[in-house]
């Protein structure tokens, strides 16, 4: 007999339940967890290197590195002295909650203030997978074009912070900071936008202030 069954279930339920577990783990440890997303080459690892070096005396930070194959980024992060745990997705385009739960087993969470999760370089897929993070932080470099928020709306719609990186290259590229900011704010009015250069250090201070305040908020 043929039967039609109404279901209405979110396909990513299983991941979302694990994300809830992660949320609890972060909360129990007063930990600020940030999901860092961008295209390949936008400068996520450079941002982390800078941030880990500049704030090492103020915040206890660690990184989970998602990477398709290599551990190059993890080695760069580890060179700053911060703990880095590598997840190889072996071609997978995003991190999911089960991978993060596994990685956390290798970390002393009680000794941390901030956990950065460096997602796989990709503006599409990571946005679909909740990792229980307090905030998604998207990095867009000015060499990529200011129409990216329009092309990949999901990621920008969900991010609390947008870092516009490589502003030292603005004189050489056709990128309008206001236009990119406007695009991002159209669907996500609360998004905080920081124009920065991880190469020169320009603009990083406001990002650091945001980060310290967000970490402090987790301790209350």
């Amino acid at each position: 007999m043929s039967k039609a069954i109404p279901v209405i279930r979110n396909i990513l339920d299983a991941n979302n339940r694990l994300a809830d577990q992660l949320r609890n783990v972060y909360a129990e440890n007063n930990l600020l967890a940030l999901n860092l997303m961008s295209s390949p080459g936008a400068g996520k690892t450079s941002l982390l290197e800078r941030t880990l070096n500049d704030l090492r005396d103020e915040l206890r930070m660690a990184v989970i590195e998602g990477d398709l194959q290599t551990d190059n980024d993890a080695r760069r992060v580890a060179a700053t002295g911060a703990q880095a745990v590598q997840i190889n997705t072996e071609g997978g385009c995003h991190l999911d909650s089960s991978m993060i739960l596994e990685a956390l087993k290798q970390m002393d969470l009680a000794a941390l203030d901030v956990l950065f999760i460096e997602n796989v370089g990709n503006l599409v897929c990571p946005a679909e997978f909740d990792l229980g993070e307090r905030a998604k932080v998207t990095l867009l470099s000015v060499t990529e074009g200011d129409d990216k928020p329009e092309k990949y709306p999901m990621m920008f719609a969900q991010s609390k912070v947008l870092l516009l990186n490589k502003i030292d290259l603005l004189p050489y590229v056709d990128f309008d900071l206001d236009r990119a900011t406007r695009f991002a704010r159209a669907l996500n009015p609360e998004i905080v936008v920081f124009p920065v250069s991880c190469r020169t250090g320009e603009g990083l201070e406001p990002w650091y202030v945001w980060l310290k305040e967000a970490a402090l908020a987790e301790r209350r």
Partner: protein
Amino acid sequence: MHEMSIADALIRIVETEMANHGLRTVQRITIQHGALSTMVPEALDLAFEAMTRGTALEGAVLEYEKVPLSLRCSKCETTFSPEVRSLHFAPCPSCGEEFAHAVLTGKELNIAHIEGDT
């Protein structure tokens, strides 16, 4: 290509529902995906087909219902559906406000229903 992960999750949900409702085979699975969802139907079809070969789900057809984006104006509370192509130029049709609209629908990625034989 996160459609592999989506197909994997989809198959697990369908298998649970088959057991709950005593279905032996499934012909059709209807999926609702919002205009903001980044899932690509063709890629999901491909992943689903590869992952169900030789199982009770082999040959089941995925049907897609696209859920349009609908926004509620932040100023006058009018509900409207902008063209997705111009998502970021979405002025409210009644007052012209461009910013801070609430997303009512468009983020869905759901299984809506399953058809099969007992």
